[in-house]
């Protein structure tokens, strides 16, 4: 699936991830969309809030439920120049998680900053 886009327009895309992994397919599909979308040279941010923060939890092991373990793919994002990963501090705290529990380097932001981040975007994709 090779796709190219030569439109020359650059827009700001944000992918908002609010669900725990594996219970639904949305977290996996969010990552797939970001990886495919990388070919379009847009400005891409990923935001993890609410149960979405569990997507970045270390030590996920999906063998016994026979699912693909896509968590590792978050580590590949850097190679695709997707480097703006935001995680909401309050979402971590409510779940007893700390930054060190996460698979990849992220920027932790306060809940009060979330609307500011979203209001800078052109396109919001929610998963």
């Amino acid at each position, binding site marked *: 699936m090779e796709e190219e*886009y030569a439109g020359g327009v650059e827009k700001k895309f944000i992918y908002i991830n609010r669900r725990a992994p594996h219970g639904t397919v*949305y977290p996996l599909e969010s990552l797939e969309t970001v990886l495919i979308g990388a070919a379009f040279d847009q400005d891409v941010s990923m935001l993890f809030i609410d149960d979405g923060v569990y997507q970045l939890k270390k030590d996920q092991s999906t063998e016994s439920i026979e699912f693909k373990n896509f968590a590792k793919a978050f580590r590949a994002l850097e190679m695709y120049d997707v480097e703006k990963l935001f995680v909401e501090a309050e979402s971590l705290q409510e779940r007893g998680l700390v930054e060190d529990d996460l698979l990849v380097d992220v920027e932790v932001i306060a809940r009060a900053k979330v609307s500011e981040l979203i209001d800078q975007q052109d396109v919001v994709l*929610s998963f």
Partner: protein
Amino acid sequence: MKISILVNEGPYQHQASDSAYQFCVAAIDSGHEVSRVFFYHDGVNNGTNLTTPPQDDRHIQKRWSALAESNGVDLVLCVAACQRRGIVDEGERDRNKKDAINVADGFRISGLGQLIEAGIESDRLVTFGD
């Protein structure tokens, strides 16, 4: 304005596909251009021509196909989602050695890039899901 739509759910189970359709009709009636509807996840199930809903109920697939025909709306089904859900056109049938084709008129199967492109080229992208 140029508006694109993202539909994440299949027909009948959730209201998402109905809401998306009603929105498209109203957008066109208001003089806007609905350039593309991208069907993702279970949304690709909107594009099978094998449904036979009860006669006194709405025919969701036919409504979409009619919208494509009358207004040139580009109805795109995500190929990876189609493979997981069993929506097949001629190319997919040959590639994956299937016995049947079930993609409905007016729908085409293509890649996720079509969603990104819709985001870039439209003035607004509106998502309907669960």
